[in-house]
């Protein structure tokens, strides 16, 4: 096995994690041999549904759990053999802000600086610079308990940037933020990436958030289904999709599925048709099947469609192999 490339921000090879069982729960493999390489300066989003293994991968990356097998290097430092050195390179943002609610913003920031060996003069200098782009300038002496969710998130971000990490790990950081706060937070991350070259690895179960990334990895049941730039992933889906909503669409799905070059997927009351002449299909649906149809739409494929298609294929493969 060749060693991972030393310059990668994150290099993961053959990572396996198996949860040991308890008396009533059998052992469960959460990650089945993941290989992943993230170049420095990339905005990388790890996405997938709940239970796909992204939280397990995150916990291993930030050193909270040791995997069953595999190698991880952070900027060339072996995370499993020398965790302290590797951790100096990272800033970690958890789902719940890791802040003391009884302390002020400044006190929280100072604790973090001390734990990350930032000398006091450097702390003041960095604080001034970091606080400038946040809305915290006048709130430094307020207790964290009095801040809004968005401001607490900003405090958290300023905090983890104090030790100037080259890699930011974020676990579902937008959970609990309103849509405005969510967009503002993602824009801040993008600014950090562009201005300071910080590598960002973020987990998210929202495919819409992944669209902003340079690279997206889609995880399902502990396996990587796909990894590429979002645009390239959606390109793979081909052109537009015809989305038909209505009742009892099984027959229609079957009929369209028989046509050469046409792919269909049916989930609940939604039929998705790709390939062929979509305008022709619309005309046909409107003339022959008006009763079954509630709405018709043509849309550009999104990552969610990529996921639906990939999981459909994976399910099919699972069925065939069993």
């Amino acid at each position, binding site marked *: 096995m060749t060693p991972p490339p030393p310059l990668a921000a994150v290099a993961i090879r053959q990572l396996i994690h*198996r949860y040991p069982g308890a008396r009533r729960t059998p052992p469960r493999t959460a990650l089945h041999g993941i290989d992943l390489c993230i170049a420095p300066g990339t905005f990388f989003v790890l996405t997938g549904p709940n239970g796909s293994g992204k939280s397990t991968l995150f916990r291993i990356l930030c*050193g909270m759990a040791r995997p069953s*097998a595999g190698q991880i290097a952070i900027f060339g430092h072996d995370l499993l053999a020398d965790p302290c050195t590797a951790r100096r390179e990272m800033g970690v943002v958890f789902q719940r802000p*890791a802040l003391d609610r*009884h*302390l002020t913003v400044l*006190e929280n920031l100072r604790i973090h600086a001390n734990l990350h060996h930032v000398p006091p003069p450097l702390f003041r200098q960095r604080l001034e610079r970091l606080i400038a782009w946040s809305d915290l300038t006048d709130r430094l002496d307020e207790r964290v308990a009095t801040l809004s969710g968005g401001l607490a998130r900003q405090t958290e971000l300023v905090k983890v940037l104090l030790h100037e990490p080259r890699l930011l790990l974020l676990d579902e950081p937008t959970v609990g933020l309103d849509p405005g706060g969510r967009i503002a937070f993602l824009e801040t991350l993008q600014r950090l990436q562009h201005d300071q070259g910080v590598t960002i690895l973020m987990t998210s179960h929202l495919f819409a958030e992944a669209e902003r990334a340079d690279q997206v990895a889609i995880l399902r049941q502990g396996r990587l289904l796909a990894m590429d730039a979002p645009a390239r992933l959606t390109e793979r889906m081909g052109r537009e999709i015809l989305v038909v909503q209505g009742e009892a669409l099984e027959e229609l799905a079957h009929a369209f599925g028989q046509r050469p070059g046409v792919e269909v997927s049916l989930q609940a009351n939604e039929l998705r048709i790709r390939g062929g002449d979509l305008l022709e299909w619309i005309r046909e649906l409107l003339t022959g099947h008006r009763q079954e149809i509630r709405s018709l739409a043509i849309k550009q494929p999104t990552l969610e469609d990529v996921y639906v298609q990939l999981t459909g294929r994976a399910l099919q493969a699972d069925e065939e192999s069993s």
Partner: protein
Amino acid sequence: MMRATLTLTHRELVRFFRQPHRVIGSLAQPLLIWAFLGGGFTASFRAPGMEQLSYAEYFYPGVLLMLMLFSGIFSTITLIEDRNQGLLQGVLVAPVARMAIVLGKVAGGVAISLVQAVPLLLAAPLLGIPLGWAEAGWIVWGFFLSCVGFTALGFLIAWNMESTAGFHAVMSVFLMPLWMLSGALFPLENSPAWLWGLMIVNPVTHALTLIRTPLYHPPLEFLASRDYWLAMTITIVWAVGTLMLALWRVNQVERGAPPEG
């Protein structure tokens, strides 16, 4: 490592003084218990060899020890809050030895206890116990050891707990009995054999000896006594032992099971 420990200790102190109910809770409860039990039992308390002692005076070192127990417990309960609030995760991923987490918490607990207990020593002359600087120094040393023991023990229990309710249950069935069976409430001497056995193996009994003895004997006298040194050794073994166990506990990282096949 030192800076990380001091940072976490400082945080404990700031948090403590910023929550007035905590200050009142850990100080007022022992004082109330002292006032009520001391007042109520004084008339009926006639321990052999201690006839000249009022119950309030007998109970005084026990109250001081109770203060150690309570502030140690309250300090470690915050560990559960830290975990639930997410703060602990932030500390765990920092490039510091996990030992700093234990030492920071224990040192914080000890500092908080001493801040409360040392002023209470001023009550000794009011009870008619003259107290010199040397005696007071040895009592504070007893405070220190017992508080390390209680806080490290609390840390050990709280480390993997998810709810403070669970901690309260352990406190009532395990931590409080440790204090009750230490000779704080009643002397060992006239207890039934089974109780005496429990009390003598209880390290807290010996911690209490370290607090009670200097109240009545000058240092030159008790430092020459074998019983005092035995109590000192047992208390040190308890404090250091629980501290080592807590250190071992925090260094346990969740590990994946060996891969299949």
